[in-house]
């Protein structure tokens, strides 16, 4: 290698164009394969079990809560007049929002040629899929008689009924299920070359068989790569509008209704920004401990953390602007009800929820302006959790505070969650982390083949690049 490198003249990069490499310490291709694949091989480390056992216990709690809710009825939740949407819809919107970072990273950043995405896209997409699964539980359950959920789909039935396609709740069904399907496909297609890597490294017959089936006969031939990249590009193109459409449609569940606090045109863009904000918060929460647990600091570098903090700052600022604009419009509209709804948000009985949201979503991300903050991991970790606390309270503010004051004071009320509400919500963390930990253990959490493509030596001009590439003829 070294003597070849000496033969190729490489002009030095001017210092102002120097960027921190995406993979540090000149790690070789073999090192990347070994390091990532090793997480799925051998015995599970102690930290994995320490995380998996409580997660699985919470998952059992979720199953118990859902069984209790199905067998008893939705009355076990705190939803009641006038707050007919409670924690169920808050949690639904919260989880589906978290899911948005995965698709943004995998689709939009792919189309925009943001090469740093390769280190985080696999885990972020997995996070998306599991978050959408958690989200889907709530609307499916809140209808009460879950065995009639299939009425949501346009299937000819003996009721002579057809879904009401003018309702945004119907659009939601299709937006979320499309999003889930495309996300799973995108994730799986991206996994195929890495599944083949795991298959080829497998020592036992069972692993060979399972990864062999999943890898769909991938050999890494030119034709395979060519088809793969086309498929990946098409799926990225399909996913890109979904990043914007899904949360826009979720926001229309509120915006199409006539309730002050919900009936605003700013909702779709503001919801999308909030979703990406919370999604990046969750990616940071997950990856900061993971990169040190799995010793991936050379692949998920400080540059990655830094960039994701900046995205969080940008989207957090958009969200903060939207909060301000909501208040401006409430005043500017001249509508008494609109004004009351917003003054009541900040100063009414749920003032604590509103100000928690403002602190976590508007004030906290502003700390990311400082490089010192972005580069202190424990600070970033805590702030990333606060982001999602804030985003949960944003949905609480929208759902509960808007509903608890009606046009008629006779219909005013105060919402309290029940223990089932709380345990169901905690249970979804069990589902999420159980799935995520299983993903870590059995699938490559970093896109091995893609990360190799962004190493410095993958650049044909690099001194360590393979001599037989011969791209100059």
């Amino acid at each position, binding site marked *: 290698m070294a003597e070849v490198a000496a033969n190729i003249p490489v002009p030095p990069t001017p210092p102002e164009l120097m960027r921190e490499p995406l993979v540090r310490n000149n790690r070789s291709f073999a090192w990347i394969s070994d390091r990532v694949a090793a997480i799925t091989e051998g015995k599970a480390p102690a930290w994995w079990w320490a995380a998996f056992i409580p997660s699985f216990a919470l998952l059992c709690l979720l199953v118990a809560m859902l069984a209790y809710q199905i067998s008893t009825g939705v009355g076990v939740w705190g939803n009641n007049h006038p707050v007919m949407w409670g924690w169920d819809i808050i949690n639904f919107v919260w989880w589906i929002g978290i899911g948005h970072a995965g698709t943004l990273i995998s689709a939009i950043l792919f189309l925009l040629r943001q090469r740093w995405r390769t280190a985080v896209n696999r885990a972020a997409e997995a996070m998306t899929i599991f978050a959408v699964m958690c989200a889907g539980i709530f609307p499916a359950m809140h209808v009460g008689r879950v065995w009639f959920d299939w009425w949501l789909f346009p299937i000819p039935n*003996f*009721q002579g*009924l057809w879904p009401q396609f003018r309702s945004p709740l119907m659009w939601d069904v299709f937006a979320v299920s499309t999003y889930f399907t495309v996300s799973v496909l995108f994730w799986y297609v991206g996994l195929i070359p890495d599944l083949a890597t795991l298959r080829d490294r497998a020592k036992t017959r069972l692993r*060979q068989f399972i990864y*062999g089936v999943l890898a769909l006969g991938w050999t890494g031939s030119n034709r395979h790569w060519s088809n793969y990249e086309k498929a990946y590009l098409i799926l990225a193109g399909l996913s890109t509008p979904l990043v914007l459409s899904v949360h826009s449609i979720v926001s229309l569940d509120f915006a199409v209704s006539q309730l002050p606090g919900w009936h605003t045109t700013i909702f779709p863009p503001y919801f999308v920004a909030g979703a990406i904000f919370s999604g990046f918060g969750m990616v940071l929460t997950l990856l900061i401990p993971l990169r040190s647990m799995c010793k991936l600091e050379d692949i998920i570098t400080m540059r990655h953390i830094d960039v994701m903090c900046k995205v969080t700052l940008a989207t957090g600022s958009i969200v903060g602007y939207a909060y301000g604009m909501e208040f401006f419009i409430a005043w500017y509209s001249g509508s008494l009800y609109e004004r009351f709804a917003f003054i009541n948000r900040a100063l009414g009985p749920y003032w604590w929820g509103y100000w928690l949201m403002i602190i976590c979503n508007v004030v906290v991300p502003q700390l990311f302006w400082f490089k010192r903050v972005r580069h202190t991991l424990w600070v970033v970790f805590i702030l990333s959790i606060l982001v999602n606390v804030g985003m949960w309270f944003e949905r609480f503010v929208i759902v509960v505070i808007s509903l608890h004051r009606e046009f008629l004071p006779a219909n005013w009320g105060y919402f309290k969650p029940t223990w089932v509400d709380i345990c169901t919500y905690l249970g979804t963390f069990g589902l999420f982390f159980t799935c995520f930990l299983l993903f870590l253990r059995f699938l490559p959490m970093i896109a091995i083949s893609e990360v190799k493509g962004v190493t410095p030596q993958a650049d044909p001009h690099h001194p360590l690049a393979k001599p037989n590439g011969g791209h100059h003829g």
Partner: protein
Amino acid sequence: MSAIFPKWTNRLPLMVLIGGGMTATAVVAGVWYYFTPKYTYVGYQPLQPVAFSHATHVEQLGMDCRYCHSAVEKSWFSNIPSASTCMNCHNQVLKDDPRLALVRESAATGKPIPWVQIHRMPDFVYFNHAVHVNRGISCVECHGPVHKMDEVWHAQPLSMSFCLDCHRDPAAKIRPLDKITDLDWKWSEDPNVAAQQQRTQGEKLVRDWRVESLDNCSACHR
């Protein structure tokens, strides 16, 4: 690779695709056929405590439905007659017949005959007999040819789409008010003329009587 997977597995994706497609079709078709009231309700014919024959009473003796089901024009509920109604005739006719022992006992003690209910509306559905009967919907439309039944059976699915089919097009079923309990009545003996009459006369009746036949949710689910 070939060490793990034998050659025939190359055909596996196609087999899975075809097999999966066929299974899915079979499941859909099975649910479609077996899981609807057309299959689950139609033909339900429980054995009643008294072998009462509608065919004998209506076809042979020419009785009107409303002689026994006397509340049908005034109430949401079409009553099952009490035994005293039966005894109006049966204190003379077949007065000692052992088949009527239960009827006589019921008339004497006031304890109702335990008839088995056949047409059962779910409790979340509001249905009003009087409204239908007074706006030209015959008994036969929902209950079938009861006048020909010895033992009553469930003749129509009474599913939601069964209700909606008529509510969306009442002109196809509506008939003159004096023909409500004439279960065999037709607009004409000639089926083509009958269909044509049903359409033109039916639409006229719907218009004249201002039949609303609501099809919003809360018309029935109140």
